């Protein structure tokens, strides 16, 4: 029988809680610090602005585009290749000007700059300042509602203390994922928020499987086993499943990251990080937190 985790593996996870907490604590503090000081690179969904994606017949010189855009005087402009060197993404910061005029100005100036290099406009995304602010609000509430919903469900199905552990784990995952986005300066868009909510679901999925086993072992235990040993036993019993599921999910998300195309790239990136961290947190944070809380009580 092929096994990733050898049968009868007994890793004493709960003796390592201190290490888990120190590492996670440091990473979380660092993430929060970066988010607080550097902030996020909000995409146009939240910041407002215009994105125009164009595909040229032959690869255009980005500097030419840049100097043309500077002359237009339409605010801060970011120009980059997207997917291939034939494709260019132009992003303009938010403006009070008529969105349609902004888009048309950019398009016609490109026609003037590259008279011999035909292009097609593949995508135009424009978000006015008001809509951007609304979406930011909505996204924040969405994450909060998801957390509350989950807290209630776990509190009903398990003891309250487990619910706290689960929330700690989720918060940990969300903060670190967002922290990585802040550090790398990757754009936060609507799809990234969707990814974050998915991570919430996934991480919880993992955590619950472990909790479920702890609950079962607590019920079946007749030998007055220490709570620490019960948790360890449960973690080891579910370890093989935890690793397996993470692997298959990572395979799927990895395929998406590599082959899914430029549009979905950041989304897959967020999921990759989230799945990895979510797997760790169900052991290192959720269970460890439950253990720590009960230890204090006793």
């Amino acid at each position, binding site marked *: 029988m092929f096994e990733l985790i050898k049968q009868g593996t007994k890793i004493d996870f709960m003796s390592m809680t201190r290490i888990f907490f120190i590492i996670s604590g440091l990473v979380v503090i660092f993430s929060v610090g970066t988010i607080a000081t550097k902030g996020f690179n909000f995409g146009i969904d939240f910041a407002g602005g215009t994105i125009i994606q164009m595909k040229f017949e032959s690869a255009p010189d980005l500097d030419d585009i840049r100097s043309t855009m500077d002359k237009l005087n339409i605010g801060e402009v970011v120009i980059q290749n997207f997917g291939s060197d034939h494709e260019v993404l132009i992003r303009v910061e938010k403006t009070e000007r008529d*969105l349609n*005029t902004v888009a048309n100005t950019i398009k016609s100036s490109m026609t003037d700059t590259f008279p011999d290099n035909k292009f097609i406009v593949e995508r135009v995304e424009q978000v006015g300042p008001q809509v951007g602010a609304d979406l930011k609000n909505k996204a924040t509430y969405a994450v909060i509602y*998801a957390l509350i919903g989950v807290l209630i469900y776990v509190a009903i199905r398990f003891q309250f203390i487990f619910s706290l552990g689960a929330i700690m784990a989720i918060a940990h995952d969300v903060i670190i994922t967002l922290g990585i986005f802040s550090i790398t300066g990757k754009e936060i868009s609507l799809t990234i928020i*969707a990814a974050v909510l998915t991570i919430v*679901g996934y991480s919880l*999925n993992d955590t619950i499987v472990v909790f479920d*086993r702890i609950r079962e072992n607590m019920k079946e235990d007749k030998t007055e086993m220490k709570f620490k040993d019960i948790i360890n036993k449960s973690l080891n019993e579910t370890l093989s499943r935890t690793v397996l*599921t993470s692997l298959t999910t990572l395979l799927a998300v990895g395929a998406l990251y590599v082959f899914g195309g430029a549009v979905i790239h950041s989304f897959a990136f967020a999921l990759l990080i989230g799945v990895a961290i979510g797997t760790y947190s169900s052991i290192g944070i959720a269970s460890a937190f439950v253990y720590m809380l009960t230890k204090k009580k006793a």
Partner: protein
Amino acid sequence: MNLKLRWAFIAVVIIWALFSMFPLNQNLKLGLDLQGGMHVVLGVDTDKAVEAKVEAIANQLRKELAIEKVDFSYVQKISNNSVSISLKSTDAFEKAKGIIADNYQSLQDISISGENNLSYMLDKQSADRVRDYAVEQSLEVVRNRIDEFGVSEPVIQRQGKKQVVVQLPGVTDPDRAISLIGKTAQLKFYIVDDNVSAEEAESGNIPFDDKVLYQKQSDDSTGQTINRFPFVVKKDAVLTGDYLVDAEVSISSTYNLPIVQFTLDAAGAKLFEEITADNIGNRMAIVLDDNVYSAPVIKSRIPGCSAYIDGIDSMQEAKDLAIVLRAGSLPAPVKIEENRTVGPSLGQDSINSGIKAALIGLCLIVVFILVYYRMACIVANVALATNFILILGVMSQFGATLTLPGIAGIILTIGMSVDANVLIFERVREELRMGRTPMNALEYGYEKAFSTIMDANITTIIAAIVLFQFGTGPIKGFAVTLSIGILASLFTAIFVTKAVFWTILRGKDVKKLSI
């Protein structure tokens, strides 16, 4: 459940799914990000609608006071939502007050004890009604215009207090669509005040009942104004496009340029005749959205009910102008607050890379399970395939929209759906280790894994529901495929795999389970 019955049920479900999904390209609705198209959110400037309403009330009041022979010096709109009336005597003051109290219930008295001065504000309830009506009417007008424009399966809905969402799948000329739906198209006729020169107009030195309008020349490609000529006109429009019944494109005989010829209804025609009779020798400015198109001299009384707009650059513009005039004007200007347009080629690229990623992900997982579970892998892979069919089947049946994040959702659920099987298989392995017979271990494994699977998946569904609530198009698509995927994987893990196991193992004296 009896094994035969179980298989029958599974067969029905799968056949139903296959039946719903084929032919796939007809039954599976693609989102705008995959098939190309535009999603535009228009914000209706409802303040302008209120302002127009107040303006109209002021005009009506002026007429009524004149008819009732009330001695007033002026009736004016003083802010966005209020009018001020100045009267020449206490007698007139009382009379005006009475008329307004009787006939203008929507006006709220906000006068500050000034000498023979009255101020009124449009009350909040009426203002709200005007705002609401403006949005509703905009929706209607935009719908009419889109209908004339000809797009298949457009979605036009109201969103919140003052927004209108327009979705046009597969639209090939987004710029034209935007200019069509965004144009206010308020047609107005003014009498030009030729006593004031253009220089005086530019300096702002004009009589109080006049205003300046411009004839703008814009750059064809950018739409930016490059030149403008001032016209001084009498402030009140003498006639509006409300009387318009038809508009058509034709070619002017003199210059061979496109013009839009429009016809007024009987009341409009009568008004037009009176106005022209009263203003022979003056110029009449034909104004669309505050832009003067032309200002011909009225040479004689014009009895007919037909006139035209010229000064149009292209045939295309003339056609679109005719469309918007026919479809009616927007009650208030609209602003584009959000625009997401995806060209068909990018949509196709997204579909291709999405399918590629899905297939590769699927292969990787299949191979992985094959290596890991050997015989049981057949079971797991059957489950995978069933899942895939179920997701597409359910989506087709219920008209759910597949978006790019939606494809990602399918890939993700495929990865996660293995989880249910893993949970069961791992459980069965454990039971086997504890010395149970294979059949027994299977029975226990399924039973014990069940509550775990439920708990674990319900939480993901909670996240998906929240996503659906808050998301816009593409994100909603993701939430939908994620939820359907989870439900499908629950079904396959609990129903299908068990049936497969039982069928393989039934009747055999199984000593060893390759799991």
